[in-house]
């Protein structure tokens, strides 16, 4: 296998992009990444997108976007793994370059979610749950994560305020990210008094519905060195699956797919979790980040709540988690999220993250997750 580097990244402002279509937001970010990479040639393209069919009525997306970008007849594939579609697209792009099949691969993630009503969007997202065992019984994702939160609170004494601390921290970080959908701070008080969505989760515990895209350009490490431009190596990739249905899990409070994916990615990189300087993780709900910090091994089982309260995962803490603002503040265009995490990791390792820069960061880990953890994709990035 060849070593793989990221030589270009692109992302535009996320939000309710009513004036732009899916292909427009894809094109804008893809062109930024290609420009950043300083390459002319693209050999192949992988796009992560969860549900363009339900959100904008468009399938056959990979060819559509290759055409829109003016790159036909390059091979292009769309990757779907619910909210981890972006992370999985990155992994597929990595495999394509590592295998020697292609040299310069564009990996993008995109989702256009605001062309439908809130109900339709909730339905589309709900298809990431087990329809027969969850969806048909009326469960939606806020409901599923609420049950996980209740179980975690019951089992480990995690508090309502600790959940709120995740949102407060990520909004604090996101307030320094000009591309974030919600670049403002929130208080614990505001979170715990915001509108109730699914007890105990309130609206400020939930990531938003977002239009957005992100893109990276990958190439073999040798080629990256020749460009003379800053690049970041993908040192490890790991992916794992779990039951989609929450009811089939042994433990409602544990994300096994994240643990396995992280172990694989770290083993491949030859690193331990303590070697990592920053983490971009899938905080689709505040409880998710608490459980992810446990599954990654940043803290022990059940210790995620106290950890955020003690500032362990804050910017100045031992393990800065979600310097970008996370899904909570940056936004969550589902298929784009995993690629945007890579964009943040690369910016941080190139020292270009501005006000939210983790000082001296040399290694970053991204964790992207589908559904309630039915799939997890983890990548380890290293600066040269």
């Amino acid at each position, binding site marked *: 296998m060849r070593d793989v580097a990221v030589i270009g990244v692109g992302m535009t402002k996320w939000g*309710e992009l*009513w*004036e732009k279509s899916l292909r427009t937001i894809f094109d804008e970010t893809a062109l930024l990444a290609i420009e950043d990479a300083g390459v002319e040639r693209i050999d192949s393209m992988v796009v992560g997108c969860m549900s363009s069919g339900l959100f904008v009525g468009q399938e056959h997306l990979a060819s559509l976007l290759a055409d829109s970008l003016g790159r036909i007849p390059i091979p292009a594939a769309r990757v779907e793994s619910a909210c981890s579609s972006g992370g999985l697209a990155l992994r597929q792009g990595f495999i394509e370059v590592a295998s020697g099949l292609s040299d310069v691969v564009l990996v993008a993630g995109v989702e256009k979610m*605001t062309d439908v*009503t*809130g109900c339709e969007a909730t339905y589309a997202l709900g298809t990431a749950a087990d329809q027969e065992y969850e969806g048909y019984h009326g469960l939606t994702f806020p409901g599923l994560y609420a049950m996980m939160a209740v179980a975690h609170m019951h089992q480990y004494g995690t508090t309502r305020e600790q959940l709120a601390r995740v949102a407060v921290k990520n909004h604090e970080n996101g307030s320094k990210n000009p591309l974030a959908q919600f670049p403002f701070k929130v208080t614990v008080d505001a979170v715990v008094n915001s*509108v*109730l969505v699914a007890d105990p989760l309130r609206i400020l515990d939930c990531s938003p519905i977002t239009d957005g895209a992100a893109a990276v350009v990958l190439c073999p490490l040798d080629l990256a060195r020749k460009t003379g431009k800053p690049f970041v190596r993908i040192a490890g990739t790991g992916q794992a699956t779990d039951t989609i249905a929450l009811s089939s899990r042994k433990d409602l409070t544990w994300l096994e797919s994240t643990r396995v994916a992280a172990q694989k990615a770290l083993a491949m990189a030859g690193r331990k979790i303590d070697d990592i300087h920053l983490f971009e993780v899938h905080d689709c709900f505040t409880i998710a980040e608490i459980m992810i910090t446990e599954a990654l091994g940043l803290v022990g089982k059940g210790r995620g709540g106290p950890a955020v309260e003690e500032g362990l995962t804050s910017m100045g803490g031992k393990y800065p988690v979600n310097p970008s603002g996370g899904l909570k503040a940056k936004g969550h265009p589902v298929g784009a999220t995993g690629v945007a995490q890579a964009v943040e990791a690369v910016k941080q390792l190139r020292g270009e993250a501005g006000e939210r820069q983790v000082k001296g960061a040399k290694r970053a880990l991204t964790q992207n997750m589908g559904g309630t953890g039915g799939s997890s994709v983890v990548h380890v990035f290293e600066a040269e």
Partner: protein
Amino acid sequence: MAGIVGYGAYIPRNRIKVEEIAKVWGADAPSYKKGLMLEEKSVPSPDQDTITMSVEASKRALRRAGIDPREIGAVYVGSESHPYAVKPSGTVLAEAIGATPEVHTADLEFACKAGTEAMFIALSLVQAGAIKYGLAVGADTSQGAPGDALEYSAAAGAAAFIFGQDGLVAETLDTYSYTTDTPDFWRREYQYYPQHGGRFTGDPAYFKHVTGAARGLMDKAKMKPADFAYVVFHQPNGKFPLRAGEILGFTKKQIEPGWLVPRLGNTYSGSSPLGLTATLDIAKPGNLILVVSYGSGAGSDGFIFKVTKRIDEVRELAPLTSVLLDQNKNYLEYGVYAKYRRKIRKAE
């Protein structure tokens, strides 16, 4: 010089509180009250509709105008809840007030701005000298689907204005319209309840058009927010008009007299027109009033009125809007409200 010679308001007595609706749907009343800045809304009685309310408001406008209804050359009713799909509201109104048969009538529909469209056209015909007086009404018994956010605001009310060239209570200094194709709210034929684009109804719809029309009109008239004693914006909820005012540089003091929505709800075509009747009720001669409506689909009409001395003579000739809003109220429980609004029906 053309302008308003008489105006009248009508608001049904019945009210339902936000808490009463929220209770039924298991919704969080405080968040609706805070988020939409709504307390309660008006509800029409079973036999009330856009036509009956238009008649009430028009009779009051006639009282203040003190004119012979036979001199009214045009009757326009703007509403998105005309009782008939085919058969005009305007003919019933014209007949009821004694303006027939030498009169031109038309029913208008443009979501929440049909009322100001009626005003725009009636005023234009008066300015053109084609008619002596023109009657324009904005009235609605608006529909909100059960449990939808709109149910907390969809209210009932009517405002009527008679335009003419003499005996003015408010002179029209300028008008302006701002329109684009923006589908933020709609109801197709045979559908009972409208649909809306959620948050899309905000920035690209309401705010773009309301601020666009207000700025366009002030530029055209070479005026600025500080020149106006009062401003009235369309009021789909409590928050939107206040934010529009903030964006444009108006103070809450300028907005408040016409800001009826927290206790009235959104009377759709009657919304900004009723805000204007309430403002005329307290305005002093010489005051400038800016009115900007909004209709989904989408567009805004803007008017600048200058209040004349005659306002003090006619004000008390008909009930003040504040009296209609705050006195003699009858609070409904959800069940009765549901019956009145035909959400439940007796077996045939």
